């Protein structure tokens, strides 16, 4: 299908938020620096970066974290993000946290949320089929079957599995991206057990945050994701064993 539509499609890769965000959108979305929906989405992501990056000293998140800026004086989106983070933290039994390294850092939610919102910009502009991939976490919009390869963390470049779905989100959390940052808040140690976990759901903000929480959980993530309605997971353990939740088979591409 996509091949047939190719002349009407536009792909763009934008370097932002410390990663590359790839767009697969209708050609009528315009130019990345233009006034169309692609330009709007790109500007939105750069705004999110400037406002929410914990690596920028003058971002609202940094100033809020240092206690220099009251929430009421921050971008109103920060309050929205904090509220969502609190919900996810509660749903994950505290495995998702806005203070992963001891300091305020809501990045675990912000990236997926920003990508989901970017995808919504195209929907609002009338697109019925588009995807936005934020460095490996993807929001797919459209009723056609989208296919996404899941990188195998144990064999660089290899795809462990192909996931397919319609109007859905896919997020993977794993060893490499963790760096020194993903820490089990209960043990203070890096999580053991999983090399990566991929979560599929309807919308990326929650799906991505759930993937982060699930990865921090390690092996108990399986039961936890099973307990969540409308979310499924596929994991690869450090030993190379894979497991999936009971409904994941519906997404196998």
């Amino acid at each position, binding site marked *: 299908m996509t*091949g047939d*539509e*190719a002349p009407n499609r536009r*792909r763009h*890769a934008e370097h932002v*938020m*410390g*990663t*590359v965000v*790839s767009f*697969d959108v209708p050609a009528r979305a315009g130019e990345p620096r233009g006034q169309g929906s692609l330009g709007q989405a790109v500007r939105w992501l750069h705004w999110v*970066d400037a406002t*929410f*990056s914990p*690596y920028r000293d003058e971002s609202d998140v940094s100033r809020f974290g240092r206690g220099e800026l009251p929430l009421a004086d921050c971008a109103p989106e920060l309050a929205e993000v904090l509220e969502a983070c609190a919900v996810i933290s509660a749903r994950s039994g505290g495995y998702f946290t806005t203070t*992963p*390294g001891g300091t305020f850092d809501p*990045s675990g939610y*912000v*990236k997926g949320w920003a990508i989901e919102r970017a995808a919504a910009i195209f929907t609002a502009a009338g697109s019925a089929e588009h995807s936005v*991939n934020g*460095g*490996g*976490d*993807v929001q*797919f919009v459209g009723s056609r079957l*989208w*296919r*996404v*390869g*899941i*990188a*195998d*963390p*144990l*064999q*660089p*470049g*290899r*795809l462990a*599995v*192909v996931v397919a779905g319609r109007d859905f989100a*896919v*997020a*993977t*959390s*794993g*060893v*490499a*991206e*963790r*760096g020194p*940052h*993903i820490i089990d808040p209960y043990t203070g140690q890096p999580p053991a057990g999983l090399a*990566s976990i*991929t979560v599929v759901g309807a919308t990326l903000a929650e799906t991505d945050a759930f*993937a*982060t929480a699930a*990865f*921090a959980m390690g092996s108990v993530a399986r039961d936890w994701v099973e307990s969540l309605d409308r979310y499924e997971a596929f994991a690869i353990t450090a030993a190379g064993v894979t497991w999936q939740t009971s409904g994941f088979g519906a997404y196998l591409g």
Partner: protein
Amino acid sequence: MRRVILAVTGTIAGLVALLSFKSHVPSVPVAATTGGSAGSSSSSSSSSGGQTTTVPGEFPQGSLAGKLPAGETAVDGEAANTAYGPVQIQLIERNTKIVKVAVLVQPANTLHDIQIGAFAFPKLISETLSAQNGKIDAVSGASYTSAGYIQSLQSALDKRT
């Protein structure tokens, strides 16, 4: 922002550890060879002093553009920096399906690189082709050292339309 808690992806922890300790060497374009020579590490040749080294693999090395039958097109990914040097691949498509992958650039200046190249690249590319069974729209997951490859694949995907 860089992902702190999360997720961009996954990698081979062992490989990452190995690569992380290796000093950087500039990569060189791989020599164009007749594609498809099934390689093994034993057929790798090494040279000292950072000279060009050909790393055989189970996939073509060097651009296939201009050598393709009618109906197939080559799409170059962007060179991506990995912990062990720039990596660039080329996707060969027929009717929007990936039918082949060629390696344009990979690190190949040290014995260590060669071992990785001979082992990991053929494996990962052949597996990529077989696993995707045709067309994929995107790649989820990534990792520090494989980020180069993943990003390169994604960038090639980004250029498909």
